[in-house]
């Protein structure tokens, strides 16, 4: 897939340049057990470009993941939309810092940034720093972040329908990740990634 770039490990100073009218999706997909640290910079140098940055991070054990993202809008009339979710088991820790910068000349840009974190153990940590630096006024920028655990009411509802707690948790966690996969333009890719997620979650829940 030309338009989807999968980032399955993090390195320092990773940068992608987006040009005029390009339509690109980046997917950060971290589900193995390694400690990871690195950044992803998307430089939007072209007009009318459309960028999606998606992320699914599943942490477990005493894994530590540090992710920095940078949506750098240098050209006008472009859109970037970031949505990163983490699911944290055991003693895993996730540090996220994301910056949206709209430079002076980048009028009529839209930039979004959303980070949601699910803490599945009382030893798991999440740190989220969604930053904005806006130097142009004719723009629309929003960001949001949430950190929490599985909704007790949803678990309860599923258990009244006969699901065990484990089954219900699995359903809710995969649903949490599904949200990201739904934004991918490629059905085949979606299905293969979902399989990976399900296998991983199954394994972690049965520990």
């Amino acid at each position, binding site marked *: 897939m030309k338009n989807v770039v999968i980032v399955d490990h993090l390195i320092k100073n990773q940068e992608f340049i987006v040009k005029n009218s390009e339509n690109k999706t980046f997917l950060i997909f971290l589900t193995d057990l390694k400690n990871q640290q690195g950044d992803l910079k998307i430089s939007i140098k072209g007009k009318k470009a459309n960028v999606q940055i998606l992320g699914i991070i599943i942490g477990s054990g005493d894994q530590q993941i540090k992710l920095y993202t940078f949506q750098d809008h240098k050209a006008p009339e472009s859109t970037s939309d970031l949505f990163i979710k983490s699911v944290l088991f055991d003693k895993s820790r996730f540090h996220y810092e994301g910056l949206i910068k709209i430079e002076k000349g980048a009028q009529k840009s839209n930039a979004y940034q959303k980070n949601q974190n699910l803490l599945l153990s009382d030893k798991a940590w999440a740190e*989220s720093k969604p930053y904005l630096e*806006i130097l142009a*006024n004719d723009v629309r920028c929003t960001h949001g972040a949430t950190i929490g655990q599985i909704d007790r009411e949803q678990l309860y509802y599923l258990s009244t329908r006969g699901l065990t707690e484990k089954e219900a948790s699995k359903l809710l966690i995969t649903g949490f990740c599904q949200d990201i996969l739904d934004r991918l333009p490629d059905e085949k890719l979606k299905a293969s990634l979902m399989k990976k997620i399900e296998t991983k979650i199954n394994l972690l829940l049965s520990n």
Partner: protein
Amino acid sequence: MPQSNPINTSYPLGFHEPEKYFFKSEKGLSEKVIENISWHKKEPEWMRKFRLDALKIFYSKTLPTWGGELGKINFNNIYYYIKPTNKKAVSWETLPEEIKRTYDRIGIPEAEKKYLGGVSAQYESEVVYKSIQKTLGKKGVIFLDMDSGLREYPELVKQYFGTLIPPHDNKFAALNSAAWSGGSFIYVPKGVRVELPLQAYFRINAANMGQFERTLIIADEGSFVHYVEGCTAPIYSTDSLHSAVVEIFVKKGARVRYTTIQNWSTNVYNLVTKRMRVEEDGVGEWIDGNLGSKLTMKYPSVYLMGKGARGEILSIAYAGPGQHQDAGGKAIHFAPYTTSKITSKSVSVGGGRTSYRGLLQVFQSAKGSKSKVVCDALLIDDASRSDTYPTMDIKQNNTQIEHEATVSKIGDEQLFYLMSRGLSKADAEAMIVNGFIEPIVKELPLEYAVELNRLIQLEMEGSVG
């Protein structure tokens, strides 16, 4: 802005304050200067030592590398203690037209105008203050300036002073600890509710707009007090650096609301440390409005120490040409079932810069905590800038944490609609800005809210020319 001589420097508006002081320490910072301040105030030995220790800490700390541009502050070009005379500072006639016009337009009372313009050294509120003191005294409430508080209640002050914001907290807290003067001291006994907001300018016996104000508020179990400092009208100050420290103790089941409207002239660095410690079922609220100054760095914080404690921070920042408002709030959850809410609204206009900087921290001990942060920024033109720098650090999974922020401009449709109804562009913009900050303004005492709305109207007129 040249910072050559903060005392003699002319105001941007060409307005001078003559030098008539009872006592003035020598320029710059040294052990001798600090010793002198302490000696002059006839302070107990522990305070003298506290000041000197703080000075050492001040020297050892570096300036923060984040936030605004602080490199231009010359700490040796400042008078650290000036005891003002009781004489009139300037005459009303010599005040520049612009200032007078601002006061008129905001609609503040005559006596207050003179006070704010530096015409009368004290606001004519002696009568008000005395009657308030009488009522408060009956309930056992103490409301004094900090210097008198230390003199009259040394034990109570010693027990709390500098325990919530110790000198080593940051460089400016250390500076304040060494050179503090003025500020308020309030003690509210158990179960007492102070219905009338206590305002800093009720106090007549101390200069309350000091450079290094120090405020200490203790609200005992089940009590309530609302404290208001500052005012919406511009305060013309020659001092280039203001660095206050505010410590507030909210005991079990008590509630404290602290409202600030800061409108220093645009030559001032305003670097303030404010913190509240909230115990079980207590409520701590900051309402913080920043309109003036060249650079403000201020992040009022709530430390939620007891089960069920609640903290709320409402912040408005308005940055015009040459201004940088680096403001926000911090909520730190130590105890279970604590809740916090931070709401920030900022407006940048004419090249001004606003930054929201916040911290939300939930420790493992804070099971069942909830927090919500909302930041909205309005950019009026393409020369202005808006930043959002929140940090969320969550070490407990049984929590509910939300943060959201938006940055936008005034909608063309909104403007067009209002102008098609006959409003001028400036009026329409002012109306939209006032609507934008309304959720916070409605929490202010009425006269402040009215003044703030008028002030924004005035500022917006200037901005579109």
